[in-house]
């Protein structure tokens, strides 16, 4: 035995615990010498009684049969796939002996400190999120100001001298250049940072571990990317990325270290597991919403609606705290930036302005009008999603190389500039300059002196400012032709833009489209009746239209109502906004899913919705589960474990641990569950029974060792096990979860589903009457069922 330890040649790359750690292998294995019985993966296969012989054959010779049948092994990407690269988060606590020991050691005081540090972390999350929002806001304002001033000067020069096509080229080139930079960092460095990030955060909060979604690198790419895409004049907003940024910050801050920067502050070590991290991520998302819209309550409700399946009062209160701090921080720093320190009136990135004038009041007879507008918004939103769906499929299939993605983004930016320029050039809608100079970059072009081009105020500005001017400019600022043209072009531009490899949100474009046609509605209403000009204030209808369009596209309900209410600062608008969003959702859902759900689906993410698909009660765990299950013995041979983990075709993460009751012929019974990550840590620290015997001094493996490896456990390939060590044994008793959740074979799908949703399970063992493992249910097994056009359908698993 001593021989073995001499020959140990560990190349534990991640292990920097020092020479002492190397010399004294960690030992938890019990000394008792048990008959070591090797179970090869073949022998641990549990075939289920119900299997027919045909099925058995197929199990064994899958490859041959496939080729024989000519069944396509590769199919084009579509929405009915589940990707293998996504894994579940471990929300369930692993109550192994180490955990119990640690809990015993911790004093009451320590638990109180934990609670306090949770609050501290939430405060930090809010503060940092607010700072980032502030940074984005200021950068966008400065850079966009620079760009627009440059182009404006150029246009003014060339309007007189001739050569406006050069201005057009300059505008397009500036746009493309900015977007190129933004797209390169996204496409080449961190593709997960593309888009608004809300679908990804939704998945994360749902319990899906999206690779690299909460890394520091993602945050940097996201923030820089969004600045460049907004400055690049794309039809995008900076609100969605803000939510993602908040979530990344939360995930980073709560761990007290950065794996990317290799910096460990040695704080908050207790929170280094999925359960705690996910709670903080929901706080971060809330803080992001709150900073983006100045809507702290809306942020909390966003987390509640979109994400957290796991929720309690204290968590809500903490999340609210983070939200408030975030909006306050943004407010405070923006007031300093605007040289009015202490004036806390800039609560969000987007400020809808105040709707308080008398014309902004609404009357009972306007409610049906609002509802009709909601229906229009739902229809338009569904159309938007439909177009974007096909575009996204095309992009996934054909535009998947990074350089192509960058070129595409640049082209979109150039076309944006071109379309805007054409519309501005041919627009004959001239309006006198307002006394308050609300237009930041008024373009005169061919208008009379002292007037400006009304089309230019919508296009020649950052989208946020355009939204605000649509809401608040006095009646008569835009004529209906301008608004109609703007709505149509911006609709298609925004639809085309969403899904590009740039970091960008869809909130603001939706609001802008809606505000434009809403204002158009208001103007038309006012023109139909002579007295209508008294009540049909276009700004009010612009707001309702914006709500309808946004609701029609993203289909959020409660949180969106509150966000809009808080952003307008007017509680009396609660009722119309709610009605509008309701109608928009009902009408939109009739045709097409919401944009975020669509993208989650297209991303092949195993997303669990709130309820099991209807009419699925007849499905039992027996049909749902994966089987046969690769099990491990309680005292297992190292070689077997390494082989099991190294098997690339089966990338399992949880292994039921079984124990032999008596004799060799009796099937083994379930006694626990162990995760891949735990096994890897055990292998890395060589916790072998034989080594334990040869050592006098033993350092017991602690929970801390598992936490230190979290969240990036090394792959099995990086752990080398010599031939001698392969013959050693490992005792899993102390580390496995001794009480995994189990269900009998006849449990219905909705019951299993509920367990997963409510407890946040990752593995659910299906056992027979004698507590023998017959199958394992994971997230992917459940997520593959969904209600399609022809009733219950099943998604296919694919490697992506």
């Amino acid at each position: 035995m001593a021989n073995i330890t001499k020959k140990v040649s560990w190349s534990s790359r991640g292990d920097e615990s020092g020479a002492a750690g190397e010399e004294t292998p960690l030992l938890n294995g019990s000394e008792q010498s048990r008959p070591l019985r090797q179970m090869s993966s073949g022998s641990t296969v549990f075939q289920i009684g119900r299997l027919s012989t045909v099925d058995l054959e197929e199990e064994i010779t899958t490859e041959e049969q496939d080729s024989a049948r000519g069944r396509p092994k590769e199919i084009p990407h579509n929405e009915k796939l589940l990707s293998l690269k996504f894994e579940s988060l471990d929300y369930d606590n692993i109550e192994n002996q180490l955990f119990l020991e640690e809990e015993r050691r911790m004093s009451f005081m320590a638990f109180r400190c934990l609670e306090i540090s949770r609050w501290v972390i939430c405060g930090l999350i809010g503060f940092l999120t607010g700072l980032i929002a502030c940074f984005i806001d200021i950068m966008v304002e400065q850079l966009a100001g620079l760009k627009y001033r440059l182009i404006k000067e150029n246009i003014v020069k060339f309007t007189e001298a001739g050569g406006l096509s050069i201005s057009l080229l300059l505008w397009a080139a500036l746009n493309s250049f900015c977007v190129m930079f933004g797209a390169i960092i996204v496409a080449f460095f961190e593709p997960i940072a593309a888009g608004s990030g809300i679908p990804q955060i939704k998945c994360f909060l749902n319990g899906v571990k999206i690779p690299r979604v909460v890394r520091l690198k993602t945050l940097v790419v996201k923030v820089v990317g969004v600045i460049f895409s907004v400055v690049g004049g794309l039809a995008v907003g900076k609100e969605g990325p803000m939510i993602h940024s908040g979530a990344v910050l939360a995930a980073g801050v709560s761990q007290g270290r950065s794996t990317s920067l290799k910096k460990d502050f040695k704080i908050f070590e207790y929170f280094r597991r999925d359960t705690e991290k996910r709670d903080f991520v929901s706080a971060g998302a809330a803080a992001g919403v709150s900073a983006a819209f100045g809507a702290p309550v809306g942020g909390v409700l966003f987390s509640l609606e979109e994400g957290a399946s796991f929720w309690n009062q204290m968590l809500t209160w903490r999340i609210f705290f983070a939200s408030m701090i975030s909006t306050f921080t943004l407010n405070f720093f923006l007031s300093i930036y605007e040289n009015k320190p202490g004036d806390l009136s800039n609560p969000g990135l987007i400020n809808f302005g105040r709707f308080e004038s008398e014309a902004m009041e609404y009357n009972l007879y306007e409610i049906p009008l609002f509802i009709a507008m909601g229906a229009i918004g739902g229809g338009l939103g569904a159309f938007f999603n439909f177009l974007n769906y096909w575009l996204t499929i095309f992009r996934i299939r054909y535009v998947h190389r990074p350089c192509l993605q960058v070129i595409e983004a640049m082209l979109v930016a150039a076309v944006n500039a071109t379309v805007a320029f054409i519309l501005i050039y041919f627009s004959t809608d001239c309006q006198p300059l307002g006394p308050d100079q609300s237009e930041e970059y008024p373009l005169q072009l061919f208008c009379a002196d002292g007037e400006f081009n009304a089309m230019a105020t919508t296009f020649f500005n950052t989208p946020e400012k355009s939204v605000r001017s649509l809401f608040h400019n006095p009646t008569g600022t835009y004529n209906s032709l301008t608004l109609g043209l703007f709505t149509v072009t911006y609709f298609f531009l925004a639809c085309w833009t969403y899904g590009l490899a740039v970091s960008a949100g869809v909130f603001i474009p939706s609001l802008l489209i809606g505000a434009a046609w809403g204002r158009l509605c208001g103007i038309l209403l006012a023109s139909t009746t002579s007295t209508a000009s008294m009540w049909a204030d276009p700004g009010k209808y612009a707001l309702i239209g914006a709500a309808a369009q946004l609701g029609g596209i993203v289909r959020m309900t409660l949180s969106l109502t509150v966000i809009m209410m808080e952003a307008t600062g007017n509680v009396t608008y609660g009722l119309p906004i709610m009605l509008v969003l309701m109608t928009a959702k009902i009408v939109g859902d009739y045709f097409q899913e919401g944009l975020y759900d669509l993208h989650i689906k297209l991303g092949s993410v195993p997303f669990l919705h709130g309820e099991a698909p209807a009419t699925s009660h007849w499905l039992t765990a027996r049909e749902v589960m994966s089987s046969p299950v690769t099990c491990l013995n309680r005292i297992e041979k190292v070689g077997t474990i390494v082989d099991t983990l190294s098997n690339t075709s089966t990338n399992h993460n949880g292994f039921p641990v079984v124990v032999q009751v008596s004799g060799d012929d009796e099937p083994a019974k379930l006694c626990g569950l162990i995760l891949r990550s735990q096994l890897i840590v055990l292998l890395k620290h060589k916790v072998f029974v034989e080594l334990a015997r040869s050592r006098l001094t033993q350092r017991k493996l602690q929970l801390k060792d598992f936490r230190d490896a979290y969240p990036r456990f090394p792959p099995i390939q990086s752990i080398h096990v010599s031939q001698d060590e392969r013959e050693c044994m490992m005792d899993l008793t102390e580390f496995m979860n001794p009480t995994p959740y189990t269900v009998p074979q006849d449990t219905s799908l909705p019951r299993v589903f509920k367990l997963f949703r409510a407890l946040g399970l990752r593995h659910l063992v299906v056992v027979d009457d004698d507590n023998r493992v017959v199958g394992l249910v994971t997230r992917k097994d459940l997520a593959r069922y969904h209600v399609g056009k022809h009733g219950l359908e099943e998604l296919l698993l694919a490697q992506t």
Partner: protein
Amino acid sequence: MSLHRYNLGLLLIILNIYSLGLIDALNATASDSAANPLQAPSDHSHGSSAVVSSPVYKPAVDSSYWINLLSSFPDDLEFSEYCTELLRLFGQRYVAFVNCLVPAARPVRVCQNCSPGYSSLSEVFLNISSDKLGPANESCRDSILRSDRLMLVFLLYGSLDTIWKKSNCKQCVTTDLTGPNNDTLYYLTLLNQTITCFEKYKEGNHTELCKNCKNAYKGLNDLYSGMEKNSTLCIDLEDSMNMTRKLWSKNFACSLPREETIPVIAVSSFMLFLPIIFYLSSFLHSEQKKRKLIHPKRAKSHTSLMNIQDKQS
């Protein structure tokens, strides 16, 4: 109350204080009041050089019955002579200022014509509203401005003051509100040049006008834009510029023509064509991304979808 209580029931004596610096030759209303037996009150910094005079004045003389009614109040509530005088002065100047404003409404000449009027009016109001005590330890602020619900004097002055503030005249006149400042004068010269030019070429073809007056107009326009940025504009200048611009753009139609339609369309159709090429080429040349299907281990066969449908039917 600090009303003086001696000389009850007898002749009312007003202590008037002359201030030498006050009566301004330029001040039209002031010279009006100089014809009166009454003199303008002054601020109390000149109190040491005060000359006391005692003009006779009966409040009931030129009042109607209403004032008679008022006069029946007990003496200590009565309005002092000093304050009555102030009030009268305020009225005079008020009327003068309004008389000046109304004709200056169109075309707007508010700042050029009426600045002195505002100056003298605000002077009186300052006297009324100052909390410093007058001669005989009196302050008219409370008795004139705050004694009743209506607060008429305050309202009257407030409305004119709003007009003044809105007109932004302060930017265009000298600090003592006597006349236009240098910037304004320069602007007016340019304006006159432009208008003269317009007059000269008004007859006949406007293209001639557009060509010949362009320099003058452009100079004026640039000056105006510069002043706009410094916010040294007042309503007079804004209005005159507006009229000039209207003449230039609408009447004489000298705006820039939309000439380059063809190059703009050419460039933009090229730009719009690029994405079509891009998508076509990526569709034709880029290999389609395929997904490798994985066959999950199942207790039942893979074709469980078929089973689903079997079971459902």
